[in-house]
């Protein structure tokens, strides 16, 4: 079993370890899962380093390549007579996503340190979910991909339903059903590729060798893009996101907003653009317009929120809009921006939701107007919160700036398939959201952390504990590293984007 398989199976093994702990030792569980996800993180770092060495020589040859080059491929025939195989591997985009996922789950399991209700089930479901996420990012057989994709969605129902707050059952059901309807359309697409290509295989790379008829591509592309877009909070199908995130427990919000929503953008890029370039050209400008609404709508929605989680959830809708916007620009800058934004938003929003959970665990309120002056009693949390906020409004030096700049430049440069004027206009409109973001982030944070302490109970609150400091510290460090030294990171993903681009240009 190779490194890639180990990455997929590690959370599952951790889950088995968690399940086998007797009930009376439930405190052990968090140590086990912190340890297990720590190993996942270490494996992900190893993968990055090894990928770096393996791919370093190929950067120039990829410029003209039309097929994605995979590394560390493992293939095992599965349902052999139907051409279904266990086919995993990685390219630059996958590596970036794997690193993101492993950081989020590691910090997420630290951030759940103080969960005390049905701990075993909580961690088991969380780890099962992450197995699915790793699987999606690393599998290149559509059957396997779909299997992991749904595996990543379903545990969410129980996680929100059992450990959530507020109207949790409603939110959990809404989230699960909307996401699965999205995946239903994706499934139609996958089966159609299998039969229409005539290859009787789900191997993504081999399916990519076929040029599908224009008519087929034009009706299939919106199915795939919207199907994945539901998970990427595409307007107007984003409505599960604010409810779901605000009801979910801390680690689940982190994982969901941080990683799971990225599956949408990832799938649109990996499968939508890769297999359906003609469809993408046909629909590109339409989806660009739709995602522009996404970006602005999310940002404007966030202004009006008084609950910290709703506030962040709307901001996530806006930021995930950037990802899909980047995908819809159909050029190098945009694609790079989309991947960067997936990574950057994942870390940033993970930090946001983690911090909200920590603050809520102390104040027992998430209502912004009820809080004030918390910076005095919890300086660590306040500082990291500000860093997350500044990353979200695109302050240079943090990763959000790098990502958003790429996305906007991508939109502004235009592409060869749609009107430049229209694209420029849309980009300018989307850029306005930066201002709106600054308004809501700064206003919200100022209310919570600055000014006089509004409630005398707040005086007795404590600052972050060690598990919390490690969790937030790791996330802030990642934001800074990518923000200050984006070069290596961009070099990592760039070669893997050329094939997508080359397919668009015929």
């Amino acid at each position: 079993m190779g490194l890639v398989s180990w990455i997929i199976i590690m959370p599952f093994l951790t889950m088995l370890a968690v399940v086998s702990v007797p009930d009376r030792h439930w405190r052990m569980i968090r140590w086990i899962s912190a340890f297990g996800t720590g190993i996942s993180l270490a494996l992900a770092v190893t993968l990055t380093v090894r990928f770096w060495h393996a791919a370093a020589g190929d950067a120039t040859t990829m410029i003209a390549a039309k097929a994605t080059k995979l590394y560390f491929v493992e293939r095992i025939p599965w349902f052999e007579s139907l051409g279904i195989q266990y086919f995993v591997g990685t390219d630059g985009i996958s590596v970036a996503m794997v690193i993101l996922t492993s950081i989020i789950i590691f910090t997420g399991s630290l951030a759940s340190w103080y969960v005390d209700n049905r701990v075993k089930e909580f961690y088991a479901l969380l780890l099962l979910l992450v197995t699915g996420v790793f699987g999606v990012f690393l599998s290149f057989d559509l059957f396997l991909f779909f299997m992991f994709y749904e595996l990543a969605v379903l545990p969410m129902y129980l996680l929100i339903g059992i450990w959530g707050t507020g109207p949790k059952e409603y939110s959990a059901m809404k989230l699960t059903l909307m996401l699965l309807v999205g995946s239903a359309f994706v499934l139609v697409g996958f089966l159609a590729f299998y039969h229409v290509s005539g290859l009787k295989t789900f191997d993504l790379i081999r399916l990519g060798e076929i040029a599908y008829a224009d008519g087929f591509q034009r009706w299939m592309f919106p199915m795939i893009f919207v199907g994945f877009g539901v998970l990427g909070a595409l307007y107007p199908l984003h409505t599960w996101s604010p409810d779901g995130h605000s009801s979910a427990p801390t680690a689940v919000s982190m994982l969901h907003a941080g990683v799971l929503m990225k599956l949408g953008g990832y799938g649109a890029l990996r499968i939508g653009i890769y297999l359906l370039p003609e469809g993408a050209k046909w629909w590109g400008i339409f989806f660009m317009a739709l995602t522009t609404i996404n970006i602005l709508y999310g940002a404007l929605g966030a202004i009006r929120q008084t609950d910290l989680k709703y506030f962040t959830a709307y901001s996530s809708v806006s930021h995930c809009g950037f990802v899909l916007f980047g995908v819809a620009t159909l050029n190098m800058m945009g694609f790079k921006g989309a991947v960067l934004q997936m990574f950057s938003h994942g870390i940033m929003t993970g930090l946001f939701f983690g911090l909200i959970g920590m603050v809520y665990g102390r104040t027992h309120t998430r209502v912004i107007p009820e809080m004030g002056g918390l910076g005095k009693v919890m300086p660590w949390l306040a500082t990291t919160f500000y860093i997350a906020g500044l990353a979200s409004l695109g302050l240079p030096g943090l990763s959000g700036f790098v990502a958003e700049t790429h996305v906007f430049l991508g939109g502004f440069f235009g592409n060869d398939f749609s009107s430049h004027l229209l694209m420029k206009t849309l980009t300018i409109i989307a850029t306005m959201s930066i201002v709106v973001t600054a308004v809501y982030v700064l206003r919200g944070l100022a209310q919570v952390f600055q000014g006089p302490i509004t409630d005398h109970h707040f005086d007795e609150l404590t600052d972050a504990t060690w598990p919390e400091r490690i969790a937030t510290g790791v996330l802030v460090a990642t934001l800074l590293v990518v923000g200050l030294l984006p070069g290596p990171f961009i070099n990592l993903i760039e070669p893997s984007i050329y094939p997508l681009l080359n397919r668009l240009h015929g």
Partner: protein
Amino acid sequence: MFMCPHFTVIATAFAVLLIDLFLQERQRWLLGTVTAGGLVLAFLAAVMTPIHGGAMFGGRFEANAVTWWFNIIFILAALVTVIISMDMVNGNAKVRVRGMGARGEYFAVMLFTLTGMMYFAAARDLVTFYVSLELATIPMFALASWRREDAKSGEAGLKYVILAMISSSLMLYGLALIYGLSGTSSLTHLALAKQSPLLWFAVALVLAGAGAKFTVAPFHFWAADVYEGAPTPITAYLSVASKCTGLVFMFQFMFVFFSEWLSNMGFLFASIAAITMTIGNTVAIVQTNIKRFMAFSSISQAGYFLMGFLSPQAPAVPALLYYMLIYLVSNMGVFTAIIWYANETGREDIDEYHGLSRTNPLMALMMMVCLFSLAGIPPLSGFVGKFFLFSIASSAGYHWLVAVAAVNSTISLYYYLRVVRQMYIEPVYPDAQFIPVPKKMVWTEGFLFAAVLLLGIVPTLYEHIHADTVGWFAALPK
């Protein structure tokens, strides 16, 4: 030779009837055990028979790889039913079902239906076809109304008699017409019949009979009431074995006889599939009784099965058989939990399952997994099976039907999650404590649960079915 399993089942049925005569009331628990033992023998016999059998009685019956697999499915369904019936029939349940006497007959009658089903799968002649179908159906009426003191059970039996008889007489009319038009009673030669409007009419009548058996809309109305009123193990048996009879029926007609025409009629069948699954799923949402709920769930499953008939190509056969097997273990898994819970507490409403995950985490988990498998959630076997069926529809170009079916799966998840929500999210009963689980229940459930997991991950069994049956179409007489 290939009738060995059939004869074993018949012998067991008579043995049970006979032994019953000589037993005292307190010794009658033995009957269930004898039945189960006979079925295990029949199962072994079925496994041992050569997979590519041959014709018998001058071509009135024929065994081949497909009937081999159907025998396995039928016997397995009956075996599980017998095991999960035992507590109830023997009066060991904490909450007794009144009026469940006559154990010898209960098991014997069930074995007769099983015999009918197995012969039905092998029938290749209009007469044997019809007679074995009736043998599979008529004893079922008695089983459905077995709870003598329960009005609902009587209602179930009566409804079942009337509707099944109507559909069966329509079918008989159709068969007679077909015989008249083709001049042969051999099923494989029916296709020689000259195409004429009358033949279409006859085929429509026959297919209505198949539809009623298979609970396909608009012939599904009997299912909910019968499923609710029948003793729960019989409901399980009806929803699996009787449905499988419907599947055999479709195999006989759609593939053996009708395959040439299917390409013209595809749209009709696709529409019926879409309507069936949509009706089943949407009506299931509002059910409160878990047996009615499972009835509508099984109606919607019939819609998924129909997708497998849209393309008369080699891969359709293993896909349908594999999904039948998966449906058997998933559905039986859910029913085992339902019966156990009803036996111990007498509760049969969905709302009464709340807190089960706290008192009996293992049973709740296994039931949940089986429900998810019915909903088609990966990596469980239900997903894999549905995926293969969807793939058949997609290969015939029915992408819209795949979309309808996939959305329907999501709808079905909504109501399956209602049960999960009761078990996992809603609070426990105030005085709730661990509900004891009889050994045979936990082992049966565990076996089914393991099958639900493994059939989705381990491809071996599918590959076997595929290898055995992939040549089936080619071997059909043209």
